[in-house]
């Protein structure tokens, strides 16, 4: 599986480099290479995840190694949707490097013995919970990136500097729409993700809430994005401030995803 994942990493790296090059020199041919490399990487990645599932006998989203790899895979999918829907190629220059890094780190971590898996990971609800949450994080990453792009482009327009960024980023309203839609999708996924987690926990332990750091972070994240969406959807256009919220919100997402590991609690696996 490792060699297949190495090939995946190679494809993502090619895609990342070409996305950045395409961002710099705006060549369609370079962009095409980036897109095809992404597709190739994604297909291999899907195969690798599928093979993992079959060989290890459990859903390939449990340990940190698996979570990173799965998150990378989810991000590719989300990025593809954004690219298809908005033709915003600039997104690739920001997303593909991160996807490569995630894949790289998941390769760095040696796979642990499979028998160490707690039995509960085999229940049906558990993978649904983790998958929903991972996709929510991927969507929030898109919110974060679109927010950064918004702030950059807004700055260019206000200060009238017209640097390279001005020519390469999509129009303000497009970026704003990407951020808003991604936030709605992310929040919906997170809501269902938290709900399935609570339901699962209720079934198993008879309680929904463990006061675990990850749960608290997740709740904060949920509240923040809820606020962000309400804030955005009120009658007024809030471009800039909403964009700042999108940036700050992502810090919470990172906290939920990684920070909680260091604070202990029952949500720490692998």
């Amino acid at each position, binding site marked *: 599986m490792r060699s297949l994942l190495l090939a995946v990493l190679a494809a993502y790296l090619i895609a990342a480099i070409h996305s950045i090059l395409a961002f710099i020199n*705006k*060549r*369609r*041919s370079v962009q095409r290479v980036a897109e095809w490399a992404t597709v190739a990487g994604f297909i291999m990645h899907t195969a690798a995840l599928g093979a993992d599932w079959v060989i290890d006998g459990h859903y390939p989203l449990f340990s940190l190694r698996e979570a990173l790899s799965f998150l990378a895979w989810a991000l590719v999918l989300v990025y593809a949707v954004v690219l298809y829907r908005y033709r915003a190629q600039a997104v690739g220059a920001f997303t593909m490097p991160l996807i490569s890094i995630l894949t790289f780190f998941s390769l760095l971590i040696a796979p642990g013995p499979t028998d160490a898996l707690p039995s509960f990971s085999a229940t049906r609800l558990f993978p649904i919970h983790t998958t929903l949450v991972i996709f929510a994080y991927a969507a929030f990453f898109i919110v974060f990136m679109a927010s950064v792009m918004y702030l950059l*482009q807004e700055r260019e*327009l*206000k200060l*009238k500097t*017209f640097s390279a960024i*001005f*020519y390469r980023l*999509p*129009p*303000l*309203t*497009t970026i704003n*729409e990407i951020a808003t839609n991604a936030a709605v999708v992310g929040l919906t996924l997170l809501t269902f993700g938290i709900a399935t987690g609570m339901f699962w926990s209720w079934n198993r332990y008879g309680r929904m809430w463990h006061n675990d750091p990850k749960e608290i972070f997740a709740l904060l994240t949920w509240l923040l994005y809820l606020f962000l969406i309400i804030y955005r959807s009120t*009658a*007024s*256009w*809030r*471009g*800039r401030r909403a964009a700042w919220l999108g940036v700050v919100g992502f810090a919470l997402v990172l906290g939920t995803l990684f920070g909680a590991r260091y604070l202990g609690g029952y949500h720490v696996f692998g």
Partner: protein
Amino acid sequence: MSIILVGVNHKTAPVEIRERLAFNDEACADGLRRLVDGEVVREGLIVSTCNRVEILSATTAEQLESGAGRLAQFLDAAGQLPAGFLNSYLYRHTDEEAVRHLFRVASSLDSMVVGEPQVLGQVRRAYSVAVEAGTAGRVLNRLVHHTFRVAKRVRNETGIAANAVSISYMAVELGKKIFDSLKGCTVLLIGAGEMAELSARHLVNAGASRVLIVNRTEEAARQIADEFGAVTVPFERLDQALAEADVVICSTGAPTYVLTEAQARQALSRKRNRPTCMIDISVPRNIDPAVGKVPNVFLFDIDDLESVISSNIREREREAERAELIVQSEVMQFQQSLRLMDIGPTIGAMRENFQEVARAEMARQRKHLGVLTKEQETAIEALLLTTVNKISHPILNQMRRFYESTEAETVPDEQDIFKLEE
């Protein structure tokens, strides 16, 4: 075959010279028919625009010099100028240089404003005139088609035409950086100046659906409004119009600010803070610069527009460097294909080969002829060679004519021909 290009352009000749040489389509066709004689000048094409007059022609490699002279004479005569008058203004390019020049012209790399789109259409027109006049033969056909391909490649693969370089188009350009589409946008013109009108026209072409015009004298406003199907708004209702506009173009002759920060804030809150692009092309400025500080208002004055334009020009120039590389590689490709098209070397090789056969036969039969004087020997050899030449000449000529009348991609080389016989 060789290609010659002789002409003048905006860099080498002042307008007084260029206007004397300019050809309209009719003069172009007439001139071409007179110029192309099938001997020295075998094919011809005239590109005549306000910035250039160029004659492109095909001839044989041996007649390159006289051909170029003929073209220069032709231009002198066309401008009713004394012979040789144009020499200091003319440039002459042959073969590779001529091909490169034409590629650069059609790709708009040689234009006054790099990337302007008209020149390709002008080359296309020149070509169709030449085709109608019957002066575009296989070399020019091929060259011009290749030229279209190069121009298309340059346009598609580089951004030399990507960013606007005129003030009136800037509203569209900046609008597109704020709104994903200008479709359905409302444009407000404050003042009914010519530049504002032109900008509005571009915006409407880009999809803007409504144009409002506010002007102190309503008559001038109405005049423009009629042209666009726009709506005139009395000056007192400026604030209301402002609240509806996505793009505002301001160009009045007023000596003071027509639009203040307070007005802009009020308008923005009425339109729920949706982004607004404001362009002030008047001098002195008519929109208070403080308006630019209002959130979601993006204000540009004439200097800002100039600075975008100059950065767009720089961007185009960077792209032009890439375009030159494309042109370079295409020139090499074309030269290669032209070489394959040239029957000349094959015919030469065949003639050599025939003569070789005659000499070999002579050597083989020499011993049966006994003792001969030097003169007799030369006479026999001459007899053989002239016979071979005289027999083969019409055949080879026929062959040349045949190839030149077809659009064959390549000609067989002499080895291909003789291999068949072995």
